[in-house]
């Protein structure tokens, strides 16, 4: 019991680090890692969602298409960005950017940081589930390399909606889960206070997910977490992205797509 208790406490410390208010957000990484980021706005259907941002940027002598979930730092920015919880328009903007990346053969770098897609009436009316599902197919079939890096929180379908690709990287203190621990505790224990038990049971830390074979690389953070030194965190992330991108660029597109298909096809196959 004490072992379980300490595991739960240690896992919960990871959850809190992943959500640390001073943790670098997507734009902090983007400005540190890429040059000449040009943000594109709008889904061309309904509106512009500031919880998901993106556009072309320079990276190591090439152009990449960046798609990212952005939480807000100040109260006003949090409101504007809806705390990083995207509506359908965010996912449809991401779809537009993936299509454009294919057109110009820009590799896609997807930066995940969200507690989940926005649970709102308007999001449901405008088909949030439809938008995410369409992205799963579009990302699975996009004829350019795609690397996903989880910066902080990877929240369920809301994260996966920009998260399908050839490589999955996670920052050392980030988390990725089928449901946030609070939601899981509420559903399975019918008691949100059991969130620490839920967090431990879900196996949501970067090392746990690497052990499950879902994560290709865990990117080291500075001691104490990325919030202590944005520069070091971004340097480590950039180095990992450079290495992974180089390994993907050497693969022809058809074998790459086949490998991407197998990557997901093989998850959870009964032994």
């Amino acid at each position, binding site marked *: 019991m004490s072992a379980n208790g300490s595991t739960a406490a240690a896992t919960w410390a990871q959850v809190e680090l992943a959500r640390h208010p001073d943790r670098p957000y997507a734009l902090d990484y983007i400005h540190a890692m890429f040059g000449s980021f040009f943000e594109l706005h709008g889904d061309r259907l309904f509106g512009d969602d500031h919880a998901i941002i993106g556009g072309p940027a320079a990276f190591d002598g090439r152009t990449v298409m960046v798609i990212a979930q952005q939480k807000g730092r100040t109260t006003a920015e949090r409101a504007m960005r809806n705390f990083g919880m995207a509506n359908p328009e965010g996912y449809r903007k991401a779809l537009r950017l993936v299509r454009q990346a294919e057109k110009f053969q820009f590799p896609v770098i997807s930066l995940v940081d969200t507690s989940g897609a926005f649970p709102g009436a308007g999001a449901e009316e405008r088909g949030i589930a*439809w938008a995410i599902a369409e992205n799963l197919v579009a990302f699975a079939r996009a004829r350019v390399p795609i690397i996903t890096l989880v910066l902080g929180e990877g929240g369920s379908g809301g994260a996966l909606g920009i998260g399908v690709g050839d490589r999955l990287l996670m920052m050392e203190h980030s988390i990725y889960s089928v449901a946030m621990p609070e939601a899981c505790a509420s559903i399975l224990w019918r008691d949100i206070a059991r969130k620490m038990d839920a967090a431990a049971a879900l196996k949501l830390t970067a090392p746990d997910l690497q052990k499950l074979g879902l994560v290709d690389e865990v990117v080291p953070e500075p001691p104490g977490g990325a919030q202590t030194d944005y520069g070091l965190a971004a340097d480590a992330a950039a180095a990992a992205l450079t290495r992974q991108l180089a390994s993907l660029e050497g693969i022809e597109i058809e074998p790459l797509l086949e490998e991407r298909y197998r990557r997901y096809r093989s998850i*959870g196959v009964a032994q």
Partner: protein
Amino acid sequence: MFRPKTRYVALPSPRAGVGEEVDRLTCARCDTALEPARLTAALGVCYRCGYHFRLRAQERIAMLVGPDSFVEEDSEITARDALGFKDSQPYVTRIEQSRAKTGANEAVTWGEARLAGHPLVIVCLDFAFMGGSMGAATGEKITNGIERATAKRLPLLIVSASGGARMQEGMLALMQLAKTAAALGRLAAAGVPYFSLLTDPTMGGVTASFATLADVILAEPGAMIGFAGARVIQQATYETLPEGFQTAEFLWLHGMIDLVVPRPELPAVLRQLLDLYTRSGYHSDFQLEGQARAAATASALRP
């Protein structure tokens, strides 16, 4: 707003004697005590108010496809506890209980069958097995069904009833969204038609993956369909939810589904769709070229 407190999972099985489980058969919407035999004859639709009871997978399949035409696949595939998950009960216990209760190994049943003379692949989720939730074995069976339809160029029908991804399998469950969606991407590229029937309830990760990726989306009357649950939305936003929020009818009004189909009309609607979508669109050689191209694409996609 229509939101009955309790809903019953299954009709008396076709093999059970009439009158069994009699106490369970009260309409969840109009509270009428219902005669099991009459309810069964009415396909599980309340003959007073039209409320559609939830069906077990085998009941649904028997209702839709030709008698004795269904050949089940993968019935031996069962859930595994890859994470060592335990909430108030160990997941392995929950799996055992669900197997004992439902007589099935997983929350989905699939196979090949014939509907109005058309061969097809039918995949049917079962809410009685852990709320129809999608774990790794569930996703594996669904994907096997999709790949069979792709390989044999058979129209695909998926009947959904699910609370979403299965918590107890963590990220292995979430990744089944990507797996099923990727397989449907190949089915679509091969030009094979896919019809999705959304039944009560279809929520969460199932709505955000295979259930909504169809060429034609049908839903049963009154079915609750959505991504986030109404309670979660109210807790997060304090919004007053509109009348009929997340019902099939609501989603139809918002352009998210093609047709709300009362259960007795389903076989005729599916027959019409199969007739239309398996017939060629040209009276010329272009059609043959198109078919050859689609077949070449399909074979190129095969492993």
